[in-house]
């Protein structure tokens, strides 16, 4: 039976899938050279006062289980290759959230010899969260923004099409 994405049944399936993806974004955290200011703010978002679990975000251990890669820090030469490896291990549809101004532009360390630059030079980034470090509310706002972009289905279709393979 020929597969076409606009049959009504398919639309229902798409909306259910999108609803599920929006409501249970699992995340994995990788520190590619950050001064750990952003990292403790990311951990702070899981603690009682901000508690990301109410949006369904759970910090996962293995890249296999994660949808969102929360990455901090200007990518140092040493951790560039590991950042790529973790990104490739994540199943589709996957998204990257760059936290902190180091992830955006190398931040205060721009120009140091061991810095490759910002995260978007290594992996495609969906959401940038500026701030040094960004407040937990800003990080939550960034994640929510990512989920909203999912609602409009912008990223999701692209990810779905090249995601399905043998």
């Amino acid at each position: 039976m020929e597969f076409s994405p606009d049959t009504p049944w398919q639309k229902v399936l798409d909306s259910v899938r999108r609803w599920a993806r929006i409501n249970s974004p699992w995340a994995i955290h990788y520190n590619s050279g950050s001064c750990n200011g952003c990292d403790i703010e990311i951990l702070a978002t899981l603690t009682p006062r901000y508690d990301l679990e109410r949006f369904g975000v759970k910090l996962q251990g293995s890249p296999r289980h994660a949808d969102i890669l929360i990455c901090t820090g200007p990518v140092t030469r040493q951790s560039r290759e590991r950042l790529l490896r973790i990104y490739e291990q994540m199943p589709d549809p996957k998204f990257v959230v760059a936290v902190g101004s180091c992830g955006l532009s190398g931040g205060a360390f721009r120009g140091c010899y061991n810095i490759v630059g910002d995260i978007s030079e290594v992996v495609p980034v969906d959401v940038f969260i500026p701030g040094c470090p960004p407040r937990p509310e800003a990080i939550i706002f960034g994640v929510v923004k990512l989920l909203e972009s999912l609602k409009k289905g912008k990223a999701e279709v692209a990810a779905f099409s090249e995601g399905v393979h043998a």
Partner: protein
Amino acid sequence: MDSEGLIQTAVELLAPWTLKVNRPEENRVDVFVAPDHLKDAVKAIVRAQWGYFSALTGLDQPPAEEGATEGTIEALYHFCRGPVVLSIRTSVPYSNPVIESICDVIPSATLYERELMEMFGVVIPGTPSTDRLLLADDWPEGVYPLRKSFTGFGEQKLEEADGNAA
């Protein structure tokens, strides 16, 4: 034992090997020692339990402009006791930057020596492990970032640096 007394004992301990003593600041004393006497000086300080080994600083004095004198690398071994900081200073020429390892006297000095080796290109025979501490694995050999001669990379300069590395 007030700080003056401490300084006096330190200077007396190192008397047999000191080339010059310098009092740059209150509570600080610099003792210049020849490279091959360094180990005996450190042994004397540790055996007398004068203080604990706090840090190892590398200083690069590039050759003066007209290039008459040869550049030197100075290693400062800082020992602290109460408010007093004793710095045992030795300098070695670029041509043969060799300093005796003090790891058999102070086992934990291996990390500081590894840092000195990779940042300044000082050769330290007898140190337990010579593999890299801070620099990336794919860092070109023979390029010592903290030397004044190193003026940072652009990506293209990286290849040059490989080329002319000693």
